[in-house]
């Protein structure tokens, strides 16, 4: 029943609480297959919470989330992830006591062609092969980010959620990351949160601006670049 819809993911009026604090008031996002969609907006707007809500780490209070047409709102995180979602958290959260191989091994799900995906990962991130048997606590910030992405890539996921990949990375690493993501987004659609203007605009095909827990603006890459007022109005850049 793999109806290859145009959209991998649709969020309709999604609301979320953290404890008793109301964070998301109404998020509406559509992610098209084979593309990269970027969530922009000032800090504290609810971008990270949106990714956490999609991945199931924070169940939504209201609204629907359609993954490939199926409503996954409220399902436990492991079920959503197992149905083909990869999640790369803001501060990477790599398992430092495990080696790179072990990080990837436990992320690989049943029925996944582990060796084939491993080749793909080594191609994209050679460092992973170099330190494959080492404990991942020795990795640098950039390498840790690569491992975190590799964990999401080890399975042939429909959708990969990435939370501020450029955070804390040197410019040359950001450029390297840009063309990696541009490759990844072809087969495994990407939804990412990004503050770095250069990465956002050189990776993203579609953009949403999230402010005070709501998606306030939507546009394509061309519209964004053409119209400076959007940047002024929403991002204060």
């Amino acid at each position, binding site marked *: 029943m793999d109806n290859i819809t145009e959209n991998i993911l649709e969020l309709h009026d999604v609301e979320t*609480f953290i404890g*008793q604090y109301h964070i998301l008031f109404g998020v509406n996002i559509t992610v098209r297959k084979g593309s990269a969609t970027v969530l922009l907006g000032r800090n504290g707007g609810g971008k990270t919470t949106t990714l956490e809500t999609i991945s199931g780490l924070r169940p*939504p*209070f209201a609204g629907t989330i359609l993954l490939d047409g199926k409503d996954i709102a*409220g399902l436990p995180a492991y079920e959503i992830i197992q149905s083909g979602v990869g999640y790369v958290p803001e501060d990477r959260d790599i398992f430092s006591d495990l080696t790179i191989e072990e990080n990837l091994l436990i992320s690989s799900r049943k029925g996944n062609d582990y060796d084939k995906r491993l080749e793909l990962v080594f191609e994209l991130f050679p460092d992973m092969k170099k330190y494959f048997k080492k404990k991942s606590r020795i990795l640098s910030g950039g390498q840790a980010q690569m491992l975190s992405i590799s964990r999401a890539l080890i399975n042939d996921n429909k959708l990969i959620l990435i939370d501020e990949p450029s955070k804390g990375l040197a410019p040359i690493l950001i450029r390297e990351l840009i063309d990696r993501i541009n490759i990844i987004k072809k087969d495994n659609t990407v939804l990412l949160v990004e503050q770095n203007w250069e990465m956002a605009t050189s990776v993203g095909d579609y953009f949403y601006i999230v402010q005070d827990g709501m998606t306030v603006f939507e546009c394509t890459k061309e519209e964004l670049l053409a119209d400076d007022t959007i940047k002024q109005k929403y991002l204060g850049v």
Partner: protein
Amino acid sequence: MKTKNKLVLALALLAAVLVVPALIGSSYIHSIIITICIYSIFAISYDLLLGYTGIVSFGHTVYFGVAAYVVAFTTVKLHWPFLAAVGMVIVVCVAISFIFSLVTLRTKNVYFSMVTMAIGQLFYVMSTKLYAITGGDDGLPGVKSIFPNKTVFYIAAVLILVCVYLFSKRLVNSPAGRVLQGVKENDARIGMLGYNTFKFKSIVIQISGLLAGLAGILYVNLNGIATPSILNSSMTLQILFMVILGGVGTLHGPVIGAAIMQIASIVLSGFTTRWMLIFGIGFVVVMLFFPKGVAGVFDRFSQPNQLRKE
């Protein structure tokens, strides 16, 4: 209910509690009410820590036990007058509270609980070991009560309990009390607001320690002997029962808990020798389903803001 007739009601009840049992004239009932008052004071002091500051100490019975031993040792062995003994208890309680506040510096939440439990056990072991001072397992007998008879003692105990309750209520509602409740919510955030949380925490540890010491003094006056059983971890568990069963963080909850515990243990022990099993199960049920305890049942049970169960 305007405050005025509430005040009248309170005073009327106070009078009733003081007069009626005195008329009944059974010193057994008096000694039970004294015991309820003693454990209520001890439970209130523990609630100040657990309920209002979120400090989970499993060594709180150290103050209670050591206070009893200090009074027994100074009055029986050293023949000190009672007031001198009370002075010594205050000094010792402050010293012990200093140790505990030091421990709060080095360890946080769960670790603090483990370490305080170990400190409590250390005092228990010392009470059985240093028999030259503590009389070992047989304890230190021979303490003369400062109250002429049980009726006077009982009236004094009720009045002391009411004073302790009012004092604690005032402390909790004071600005310092508010800071302490903030410490309970999020220690770091309060720190960022510029409050020296360590200073506030050590103040409340000191106050609760002194109140527990007061309960210890009354205990040894009632029973005339200090034995290792009051430093034992089962005493820690009993005081925990009273606060949780009654309603943590409410101050009047622990009094309810103390009353329930005492009356139930007397009535239940009449029927079965395994009455502690009933308490244990009761405690687990309360922890699972009634976190607010008996007193909390009156408050509205707050609903979490989540459409779907996690």
